[in-house]
C-alpha cells in the first residue's frame, strides 16, 4: 500500500468495496485505486476516483448520430440482453426525428421473435421486413436493404438472434450478415451496436471482445440500468477495447432510451 496511513487505508477499502460491488472487476478496481493512492494525503479520494473513471469513459465517448443516406445499424448481443426492445425504442426515437425507418427481422430462429419485433414496429409506427421463420438472416438483411433503396427509407435497424459469444458458427454468421449488408449497400453497416445487459458481471469483457472480433463494433448499448445493478463492467470494456457506450436502456417502454452520459453514470455508480 503506497500511502500506508490507517485513515487512508480504511477509506481506500471502502472505495474498493463500492467499485467491486458495482461490477467494476478486480483488475480495473486495482488500477483505479492505484491512481487514487497516488493522490495527495489530503485529497478528496472519492473526487479523484470520479475523475479517473470519467477519464476512462469521456475520451471514447461518441453519441449515436445517424448520418446521411441510408444509415444501417446492426444490433448484436447475447441472448436476452435487450436487442429487440432497444430496436423498438430506437425506431420510435428516429421516427420522431423525422427519419423513415425500416426494421429488419433478422432473428429468424427464436420462437415468436418476428412477432415481437412486428409489435414494436406497430408501436413505433415504422415499416418492417419479415421473411418466413427459419429464413436465412443474410437473406433478411439483403431484402431489407433492397426495400430501403426502393422505398426511400433512410435508416435500417437490423435485429439479430441472441447468441453466446463462444459459439463460433453463430459468431461467423454475424460476419456473413455484415458482408451481405456491405455488398448490397457499400459501407453498411454504418453502426454495429453490442447490446449488453446492465446486470451482467465479468463475462461482459468476453462478450465485448469476441463480438468485436466477429464484427467490428462501433458502440455499446447498456440495458436494464433501471434496476439495482450498476453496470460497472463498461469501464473495463471502454478502457481496453476503446468502445463507446452510446445508449442506455432504462425500462421496458418505448421512451425508455437515453443517450449515455459518462458523468451521470459515474455519479450513479459511486
Amino acid at each position: 500500500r503506497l500511502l500506508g496511513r490507517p485513515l487512508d487505508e480504511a477509506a481506500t477499502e471502502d472505495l474498493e468495496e463500492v467499485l467491486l460491488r458495482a461490477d467494476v472487476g478486480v483488475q480495473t478496481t486495482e488500477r483505479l485505486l492505484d491512481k487514487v493512492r497516488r493522490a495527495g494525503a489530503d485529497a478528496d479520494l472519492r473526487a479523484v476516483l470520479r475523475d479517473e473513471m470519467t477519464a476512462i469513459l469521456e475520451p471514447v465517448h461518441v453519441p449515436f448520430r445517424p448520418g446521411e443516406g441510408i444509415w444501417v445499424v446492426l444490433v448484436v448481443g447475447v441472448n436476452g440482453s435487450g436487442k429487440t426492445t432497444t430496436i423498438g425504442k430506437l425506431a420510435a426515437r428516429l421516427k420522431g426525428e423525422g427519419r423513415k425507418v425500416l426494421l429488419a427481422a433478422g432473428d429468424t430462429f427464436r420462437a415468436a421473435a418476428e412477432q415481437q419485433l412486428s409489435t414494436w414496429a406497430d408501436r413505433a409506427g415504422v415499416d418492417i421486413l419479415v421473411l418466413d421463420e427459419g429464413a436465412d438472416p443474410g437473406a433478411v438483411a439483403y431484402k431489407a436493404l433492397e426495400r430501403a433503396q426502393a422505398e426511400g427509407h433512410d435508416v435500417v435497424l437490423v435485429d439479430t438472434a441472441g447468441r453466446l459469444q463462444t459459439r463460433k458458427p453463430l459468431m461467423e454468421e454475424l460476419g456473413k450478415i455484415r458482408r451481405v449488408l456491405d455488398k448490397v449497400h457499400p459501407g453498411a453497416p454504418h453502426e454495429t451496436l453490442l447490446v449488453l445487459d446492465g446486470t451482467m458481471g465479468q463475462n461482459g469483457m468476453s462478450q465485448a471482445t469476441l463480438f468485436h472480433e466477429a464484427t467490428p463494433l462501433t458502440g455499446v448499448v447498456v440495458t436494464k440500468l433501471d434496476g439495482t445493478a450498476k453496470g460497472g463492467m463498461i469501464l473495463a470494456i471502454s478502457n481496453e477495447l476503446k468502445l463507446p457506450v452510446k445508449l442506455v436502456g432504462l425500462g421496458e417502454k418505448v421512451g425508455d432510451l437515453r443517450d449515455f452520459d459518462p458523468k451521470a453514470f459515474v455519479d450513479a455508480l459511486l
Partner: protein
Amino acid sequence: VLSRGFKNATLALQGKARLSEESLSPALREVRTSLLQADVELGVVKAFLAQVKEKSLGEIVPLKVAGQSIKLSPQDWFVKACYDELCELMGPVDTSLDLDGRPAVILMVGLQGSGKTTTSGKIAKMLAGEGKKPLLVAADIYRPAAVDQLQTLGRKIGVPVFHQPDTNPVELARLAVIQARNTGRDVVIVDTAGRLTVDEAMMQEVADIKATVQPKNVLFVVDAMIGQDAVRTAKAFDDRLDFTGFVLTKLDGDARGGAALSIKSVTGKPVKFLGQGEGMDGIEAFRPEGLAQRILG
C-alpha cells in the same frame, strides 16, 4: 519464532508442512481474485475465505502424494480445501420438485431476459417425458408476443398452453389450475413476466399469484452471467416469495456462474437445474462438482 522455525523444519524433513498465516496468504489472495472474477458476491467471498482459512489454519499436510513424485505446496492444499468447501456449500443436492398436488404448481420468476419462458418449456418437456401431464400458463401479458412465444414452444413439445385474452396474471394462474383439474393435467407451470425487484407493483403481482395458487414450487430463474447484483436480487425475490429453488441458465457459454454460490449461501435455497442451451432439451439437474470447478477457475 525460533521454535516455530524448528518445528517447520522438522515437518519439512518429514515431507509435511503446517498451514500457517504466511503460507496461506498468497493462496488466499489468488482465490479471492478468482472468485471475484467468477462473479461471486463480495460479502460471500469474504465469508467463504474466512471459513476455509479457519478450517485450514494449523493443519499439517503432506507435501508429497504417497507413492507418487507429485510435490504439493501449502497453497495447493488450500485450493483443494476451497474446492471441497465450495462443493459442500452448494450442496446438499436437492433437485426434486414437489409434484404431489392436484395439480402440482410450479411458479417461474426472475429478472427480465433470464430465461423463464424457455426454461418453462424445458421443464414441461422434461416432466412430460417422465409421464406427467403438464399445462403451461402464459401469464406474461406485458412483453410483446410473450404469449406467442410460450404457445410456440408448447406446440413444439406437445404441451398445452393456457391463456385467455384481457385477463390479469393472477386470474390467469387461478383459472389455469381449475382448467388443469378439469382436463386431467397434473402439473401447472406458470411463466411470468420478467420484473425488477424495485418495481413494487410487479413484485406485489407475483406475490399475489403465489397467494392465489399456492405453488409448492417457486423457481427463481437467473442468468449465469449476472454480476454482484445476484445477491440483492435473489434476496428480494426470496424475502417476497420464499422460493423453493433456483435455475441457473445460459451455462453453455463461458460465464463462470459465481451467482450459484452467492445465491445458495445467502438464501440457503438449492440450485435445482442448469440451463445448457436454447433448445428444449438444454436442461440438466444440478451437480455441485462441475459448477464448483467452473467457479473456482
